[in-house]
């Protein structure tokens, strides 16, 4: 059994199937890209792997333990301590400053305000946005917001980082900066990364790539639509 993965994971939204039996393995320290056209189930796979969502059938495991059967509280603890999550946009709390947003996970873990702020500032500095510490998300550009969000995802030094189209809302150069930081920091910390994207250029940052199509893994990477006829 590998570090993180699924066995025949199935998940539907009402009558619409999103995952139809996906088996995927992620090695420790690896950067894995999950690609595929929109609606192929890649975000759902990420949510299931991160314990944000339960699978309807199949298994999800992490470090030798099944997480699909553990309670919401247990999975929330796991997400808080072992995982970091980065979404496309809109994850920062609008009313909090950049530093407070980044410090939030540490405060949740019981850190003191002062310590949490110091750590948050250090992370903002590593991402080149230290000067934005006291700004609110609404006052930043999309790229700056994503870098703050990345700092928040990494501040607890998680073992796994889940990134769902992290550059989907950014222009090419801003996206490149975010991805550059993400890959560099992941390598430095030996963080495992699951990177969901529809863009081959983003997937190029990964060590390995798996492609989903219509809720199943597509070994050719080209899509089963071709086999259809």
């Amino acid at each position, binding site marked *: 059994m590998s570090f993180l993965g699924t066995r025949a994971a199935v998940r539907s*939204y009402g009558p619409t199937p999103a995952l139809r039996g996906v088996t995927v393995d992620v090695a420790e320290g690896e950067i894995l890209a999950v690609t595929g056209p*929109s609606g192929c189930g890649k*975000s759902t796979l990420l*949510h299931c792997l*991160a314990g*944000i*969502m339960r699978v309807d059938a199949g298994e999800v495991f992490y470090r030798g333990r099944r997480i699909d059967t553990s309670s919401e*509280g247990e999975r*929330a*603890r*796991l*997400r*808080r*301590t072992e*995982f*970091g*999550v980065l*979404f*496309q946009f*809109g*994850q*920062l*709390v*609008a*009313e*909090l400053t950049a530093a*407070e947003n980044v410090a*939030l*996970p540490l*405060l*949740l873990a019981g850190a*003191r*305000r002062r310590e949490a702020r110091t750590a948050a500032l250090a992370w903002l500095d590593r991402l080149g946005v230290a000067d934005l510490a006291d700004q*609110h998300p*609404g*006052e930043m550009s999309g790229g700056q917001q994503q870098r703050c969000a990345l700092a*928040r*995802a990494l501040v607890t030094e998680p073992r796994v980082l889940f990134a*769902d*189209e992290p550059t*989907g809302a950014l222009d090419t150069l801003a996206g490149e900066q975010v991805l550059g930081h993400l890959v560099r920091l992941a390598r430095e910390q030996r963080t495992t990364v699951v990177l969901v994207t529809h863009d081959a250029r983003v997937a190029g940052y990964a060590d390995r790539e798996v492609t989903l199509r219509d809720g199943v893994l597509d070994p050719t990477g080209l899509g089963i639509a071709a086999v259809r006829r």
Partner: protein
Amino acid sequence: MLLRLALAGSRTDTVRVVLTGLSAALATLAILAALTVLAIPTVLDGGSNVSPQYRNPLIAEAGLRVGVAATLVLLTIPVLVLAGQCARLGAPARDRRLAAYRMAGAGPRQAVAIAATEAALASGLGALAGLGLHLVGRQLLGTPGADGKLALPTDVLPPVWQLAVVVAGVPVLAGLIAMLLLRRVVLTPYGVVRRVRTRPPRPWAGLLILGGLGTAALLPPLAQYLDRSGRSMPYELFGLVVLVAELAVTLGVIVGTGWISHVTGRLLHRFARRPAGLLAARRLTADPWTGSRTLAALLAAVLFGAFAAGLRIRMSTEFAAEAEYARRSAEVSGLPYEPWDTTFYQGAYDLVYLALTIALVIAAGGLLVALAESIVSRRRAMAALVATGVPRAVLGRALAWQTLTPAVAGIVLAAGTGITLQRGLYDREVSSGWGTVCREASPTDCVELPAVVRTVPLPLDDLAGFVGVALAVVLSLLLVNLLLLRTSTAVEELRAT
């Protein structure tokens, strides 16, 4: 063109239009009723100022009519505030729609004008409906009862110009309120409001409250002065001053709640150790007006409740003093003591209390909508927080802090201001009687019986009642919203757009 655009919209928009119309109709009815009561010609009936055609002494006695009219007009304030709140109902969807107009080339002013037109139009229809109801009700209730007396002043109608002013004024007012509320809405094509730091509230609220209370405090000395020079205070002046003072303090309390929100937010931010406190603190300082805006109608109702409670306990004390005097004089004269029946007057206040309770319930509706809206508008960020492992309990506690802080502060402030205003306007001492009472048996044996003087106590029970009901309303709404929070933070909210 504006009209066509203003009428286009979704189901939420329909609900908002209907609610706006309804509250406008209610406000119109209340104002018309007040005007009607004021329009009753005063018949000098042997100096007793009683219009004999009415069964209800509250209306029959000219001296009481001003009070009735004032109460009716004051009741329109929470209703109007609710009408204003309705303009915010379904705001995110409407903002997107307005943004689409902007994308199509409408300027920001035009977009706001469209929204204001919608509110004005809806309340125009509401005002007309209110007028219609009033006129129909007049006819239906206009038949004298078995005793040949009228239950309500259905035989008089305010002058036509007054009717016109009301029917035209209510929609104009509603449109202005809508414009005021939309002033800060920044429109983008995606309906995303980019928050920038708002200026911290200035302590205007204190000035308004103090101004209102000060105006009220001027009245008793003025009345005394007029008394000494042998004149009496005109009812119109008294009513006007009461109205102005009430409006000032109500506005002050509403604005003051924003200020309190901001200050408590700052304090909480300084001292909060846990994330829930931090989140709530930042939300309170980021937009202190949300709390006061949503609570506006509720606070107005509590304020008037406290005012009414003050009046009521004053009246009860007066009755008690009179009863005491009557008892003493009966003792002296040897005539049997007959207690006075005051149930009618108590009943009048029960009616006022009922009206205020209804106002509280109406306010609760607005509050529910506004709270739900605040959750829905930030559901994405909250779902993201839950995804990163923030326990929902933390978000719930933040919501509780954020709701209860302004609510508790505002309710206590409203109750305190209301009772202070009442006790400023009226003497805190009542006296009854004062005269010579002669024994029934020997009419020459007369005794000087001093007046019974009583101090009006604070109506602590009634105040606690209003504060308690208001808090219970807020708490139950908070519970509903905590349930809503669960569904709003479902992971489905995160699905890529």
